[in-house]
């Protein structure tokens, strides 16, 4: 492997001739497999595209997302307005691009929140068991007993409609998914010999959890997190659509859909482009998530 050559000590002959020492971590192995995975790369490409346009949005656009032009209402896509304009004469392209910021932002923070809280609870429940497990698992059961979007609506209704509260709601409803996943992984990983060996050298519980159990349990979380990102984007759009998420004039995709409901026949572009944006984002995360699952699932390895 020529890529490893620089890390080899110069002038030291390899004692085991023939068997070249590879300094490959399992993680890097997986990364390479992922790069070979076609649909994961397509998904990754889509996500990367959205991330980039979200980052450089202001540089890209001649119009602001809330720049109202009463003379140019509901115009069809043209060279001036690539995606046309909405009923306030706002440039839909600008709004969709800014919308990417909102959707990715909500998805990222909501899912990160659920992963952190869910994983911590799952770790504790799985590792310590007993009454801690009972309390945490029943809590998950209660959360899962409600249809998730209904629960999200209830939470937002309680906190008051805003983008931030929608994000909290999405984070809360996704906690049990990650918590249960982590708990089940921990239950099996804690039986591993290296955990026993770690205890046998006198390691304390918290360190075993962080050093041995967590790193060996987090791959399904990563897969679920990527798939969950797609769900979070959809949920944010759904909450936006029913007016509980982003508030005007924020260019949230779901909100844009519901605002242009009345023009679906006369000006279909007002719905088409935000809809496509939602679809592609969700598709991107789903493809990437499926790819990650394939790569990390040992049964899929050749």
């Amino acid at each position, binding site marked *: 492997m020529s890529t490893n050559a620089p890390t*080899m000590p110069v002038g030291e002959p390899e004692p085991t001739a023939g068997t070249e*020492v590879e*300094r490959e971590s399992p993680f890097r192995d997986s990364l390479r497999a992922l790069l070979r995975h076609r649909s994961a790369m397509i998904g990754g490409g889509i996500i990367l595209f959205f991330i980039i346009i979200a980052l450089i949005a202001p540089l890209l656009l001649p119009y602001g997302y809330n720049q109202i032009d009463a003379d140019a209402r509901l115009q069809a896509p043209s060279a001036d307005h690539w995606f046309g304009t909405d009923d306030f004469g706002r440039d839909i392209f600008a709004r969709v691009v800014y919308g990417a910021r909102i959707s990715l932002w909500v998805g990222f923070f909501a899912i990160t929140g659920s992963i952190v809280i869910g994983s911590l609870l799952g770790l504790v429940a799985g590792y310590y068991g007993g009454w801690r497990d009972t309390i945490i698992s029943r809590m998950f059961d209660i959360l899962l007993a409600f249809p998730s979007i209904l629960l999200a609506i209830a939470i937002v209704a309680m906190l008051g409609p805003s983008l931030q509260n929608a994000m909290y709601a999405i984070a809360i409803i996704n906690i049990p998914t990650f918590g249960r996943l982590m708990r089940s992984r921990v239950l099996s990983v804690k039986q591993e010999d*290296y955990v026993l060996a770690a205890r046998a050298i*006198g390691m304390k519980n918290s360190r075993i959890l962080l050093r*041995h159990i967590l790193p*060996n349990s987090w791959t399904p979380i990563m897969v679920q997190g990527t798939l969950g990102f797609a769900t979070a984007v959809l949920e944010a759009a759904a909450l936006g659509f029913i007016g509980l998420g982003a508030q005007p004039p924020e260019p949230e995709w779901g909100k844009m859909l519901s605002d242009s409901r009345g023009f679906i026949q006369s000006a279909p572009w007002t719905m088409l482009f935000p809809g496509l944006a939602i679809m592609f984002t969700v598709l991107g995360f789903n493809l990437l998530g499926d790819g990650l699952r394939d790569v990390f699932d040992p049964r899929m390895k050749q």
Partner: protein
Amino acid sequence: MAEALLEITGFKMHFQTDKGVVKAVDGVDLTVSEGEIVGLVGESGCGKSVTSLSVMGLVPQPPGKVAGGSIRFAGKDLTRLKGREWQKIRGNDVAMIFQEPMTSLNPVFTIGNQMVEAIRQHQKVNKKKALSRARETLREVGIFREGILDEYPHQLSGGMRQRVMIAMAMVCRPKLLIADEPTTALDVTIQAQILDLMRRLNRETGTAILMITHDLGVVAEMCQRVVVMYAGQVVEQGDVQTLFKNPCHPYTKGLLKSIPQLDKRIDRLYSIPGHVPNPRKLPTGCRFAPRCEFASDICREQEPQLLELGDGHVSRCWLEDKDGTRRGADRDATTNTA
């Protein structure tokens, strides 16, 4: 005679289950002196591993429960230790290596990473110092090569991983090393190398070894004394020479007879009839009686005590109590000495 390092007396570890109490270890007496190699043998399920895990305090409680007896290590009663105190002893004074080298290392960290971890667990040294200690110890166990510290466990063979485990166990120079079937998962040539290594470490560092195995060949090769366990109890104990030449307990005899021999051709390999009894439903009287060809009425009715046969050789069998006179005497003796 060297001082007793580990002294287990009348130790009982029971497990509380929904279906009743499992008496996994039910009366084990065993001593390991400083610098000694002691073999602990018995069939699967006779309580060897639970005994060794109890010494490390690694039996989860509950469901496990110390139902009696004590484990004294260097004067301290280990059965009374709490979490913190355990962490100081594990890996530092008593270390352990396991049967499965393939799964005993964490797959996501490098060898160096895990060795440094083990070293810094008990020694206050910086990372650089710990790395050089790791290098040194790996050299001691004979697998050091440039770059091995950056390798992951899956890049090493089973034998090398077991050496890494031994290196990690030996790095703090424990007084006692518990080896739970350290060679069972390895092929024969590697077995010999690992046993050699352990013997050398024993000689050079004076670390006592409690060797848990079901391979009597390993015991004959390595150990000075042997403890034979059956159904959670010690049934015979003595130095290797005496025990192999003159086994007293029918179970030990059976075990010795079950070894295939290279120089003799026999049609049928001997095996002890029946199975190890279910630890939930132990037979009354001698636990081995249902499988014993010499069993008589008394064996099925009364539990035999450990009888001293001279020179530290003890056996738990009514046969040694030939005329029945020692039955009472033994009981007096145990109560008197206790």
